């Protein structure tokens, strides 16, 4: 298979890679760029563990092709903290014990950040529906919802 050459931006840094035309962005990130923070829970768009943003839009990176991201801006979990300063969502997830095994956590954090960007003051129901594309099998979601509520509060300066 002839490779496709792609130039893109990942977490603010320029990135270039050659991938197969049918290769998911998730595989590119994990296997070619060494960014293993996005996880493959299903490969079919059903679990959200592979969540990243492309030009600010939340996507399942297992459903996007590497070849599609030419010239676009990708944000992954590895770029969420600002140096040693965690994003409020990251801090609140730890403080609220919103992770047990943690495999779903990168996806939840990326999805929650996208949610709060659209809606800075979501109700519990809006959070629950906003995160319904991300599966967590460990927590029962209770502590995740609380962490997002608390982070939103802090980010609003409330």
């Amino acid at each position, binding site marked *: *298979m002839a490779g496709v050459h792609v130039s893109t931006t990942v977490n603010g840094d320029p990135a270039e890679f050659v991938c*197969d035309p049918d290769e998911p962005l998730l595989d590119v990130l*994990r*296997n070619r760029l060494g*960014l*293993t*923070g*996005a*996880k*493959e*829970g*299903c*490969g*079919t768009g*059903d*679990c959200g*563990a592979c969540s990243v943003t492309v030009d600010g839009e939340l996507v399942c990176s297992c459903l996007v092709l590497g070849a599609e991201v030419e010239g676009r801006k990708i944000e*992954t*979990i*590895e770029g*969420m*903290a600002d140096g040693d300063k*965690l994003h409020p969502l*990251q*801090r609140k*997830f*730890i*403080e*609220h*014990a919103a*992770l*047990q*095994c*943690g*495999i*779903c*956590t*990168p996806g939840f*954090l990326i999805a929650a950040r996208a949610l709060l960007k659209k809606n800075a003051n979501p109700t*519990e*129901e809006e*959070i*629950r*529906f906003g*995160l*319904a*594309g*991300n*599966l*967590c*099998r*460990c*927590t*029962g*979601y*209770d*502590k*995740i*919802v609380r962490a997002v509520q608390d982070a939103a509060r802090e980010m609003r300066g409330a």
Partner: protein
Amino acid sequence: MAYDTNFTGQKFKVVGTRPLRPDGLDKVTGRARYGADVSAPGQLVGRVLRSPHAHAKIVKIDTSKAEKLPGVKAVITSADLPDLTNGDAGMYDILVNCMARGKALYDGHAVAAVAAVDAATARKALKLINVEYKILPHVTDVDEAVKPGAPVLHSKMFTDGVEPKPTKASNVAKRTEFGHGDVEKGFKEADVIVERSFKTEQTHQGYIEPHACLANLGSDGQGEMWVCTQGHFVYRNTCATLLGLDAAKLRVTASEIGGGFGGKTHVWAEPLALALSRKANRPVKLVMTRDEVFKASGPTSSTSIDVKIGATKDGRITAATATLRYQGGPFLGMWAELGAMTSYACYDLKNVKTVGYEVVVNRPKVAAYRAPSAPMAAFAVESVVDELAHKIGMDAVAFRIKNAAKEGTKSSYGPTYGPIGIGPTLEAAKNHPHMKAPLKKNQGRGMACGFWFNFGGQTSTSLNVTPDGSVNVSVGTIDVGGSRASMALIAAEELGVPYENVRCVVADTSSLGHNDMSDGSRVTFSSGMNTVIAARNAKKVLIQRAAKMWDIPEEAVTWEDGHAKPAGANAGNFPPLSLKEIAAAAGNTGGPIAGHNEFVADGAGVSFATHICDVELDPETGATKIIRYTVIQDAGKAIHPSYVEGQYQGGAAQGIGWALNEEYVYGKDGRLQNAGYLDYRIPVCSDLPMIDTVILEIPNPNHPYGVRGVGETSIVPPLAAIANAVSNAAGVRMTHIPMSPPRILKALDDQAKTKAKAA
């Protein structure tokens, strides 16, 4: 080790607090490394070819075309895994499950595997393997499998545990029986008897991380494996046996684990990855797809259960029986046995008898799933208990309180209980505001109790004091939900040092003695107790060293608040020495300071829970929504309460999915129809309410802090609690789990028809 009565709740300094977990930062930044996140130079991609048939003779496998494909470095079949199990029947079943030998036993059973330079080549190679099958009749339903004339999976399976031993092969692998008293006599004393049959469908643990490993095995018999597992020592031992290696020469390192719930206590494709690596002389990374996880890594049993309970009018149970049929996939398991043991564990019964039948079917090999087998038994028993209470006009909680087991009760499965928490969880339920909250139209409330044994087991722990006075704890038990934080809390408590100065790691199999799995809710109990002992051993060394530094006898030194102090005025007048100061001087006082311990952790404390649940039913669609949920459970002692709550909530959520929606759907062809998260739908955030928790602490007398273990019991009551709530809302008894909308509609419909007929 006895519960230290001087060491009551009030005296803990750090145990019972909620510090940040040590692996938190790595897990929120994407740095934590799970099974599939590690690669080796020169690694190959491993893939497995699986049977599309539920039951088929493998006539011939031709791998020659695949072998010739450029980029393919190894192809293996069962011929590459000779039988080295030496008469160990359980181990032989594991071997057969890893790779079919002569016969494929379920849709998804491995028949061959390849290692190639990349995934695309590996996939192509699988297509070039030619397997000639002769399709055999199959059976996937547990009730069908025991009928005369059902296709028999194993021509040499003669039911164990019945006298005389049958001469005809069947799908019933084993019969077990538990109980005491005389149930016939007991039923004669009853004023009311309720008898019902129940079914539960097969569910999967559903951990988000698929099985993944990176295997490296050389022709010299030395190897390494990086793998997501609940027990790297057991994986090591099993893989070494199957591949004919010395266990000491296979070093297994556990990755972070992305959920297991019992499903990662069994090996699946790991031995294949090692065999491929040995054949290809290169490292092999093998990651299952989600479809493979569903089809070929163990779900829990589907079951069929008959329950009969009798009681007097004043609410005393006089006799109780249960017959439980659990399928274990194609192999003998102990699933019905566990169901039979746990069925009536909550109650104080004079006459009780339970019988379990282990049934084999053409489905994947069943694995443990969080308190394995108990939720189904609890569903059946607690449904009948509820109905019985209703029939004699007693409140469901009051009826259970009247019959609850207590200290001194001879349990239905044999042992006599010490101090236990069933009574207190019921009292707490009775007094909980949830019990009194008003319900609206189409809403129903249910409650139910659950029991789990909790395990102990082999454990090896090592605690090292570093030269700067910080402390390292090495455990051999996988951290599935925050146990490294708990171990650090325990070490800090014992040594009197800040929590932040302790780091706990999960050591690889070459660095510690054997450890059993992280299963049976045993980690905080076993490794926790071992950390206490290791720390106390280290404290002895610290005291010796201080004595040496002061040049006084050891007996004249005590340990207090992280410091060595002279024991009394006669010992001499020395200012206290901190752990840090003693550690710094270690090079001159005898060398490194450490404490370790190896033991079998005995005395695990049984655990009980009571759950309360409110549901709202849409009678038009049959859809059910959980609107309120409360978990009340005895933890013995909660070391890190946030992660105890997390276990309670997680178990409840899994139970909710099981009760309402999750189910393996098999077609007539014996193929799994819904091997993906889209069609096997686990609860998502918008399906659930907040899950309230109440932690009770009734100390386990066999643990220095009173720990019982908390991981599993929380999945036992939900099926029953929700079934009781739905039955109350619908006005009809639900007897088939999951209570999916079509089943609820059918139950409502049947009831309407019966009513119409009666009118």
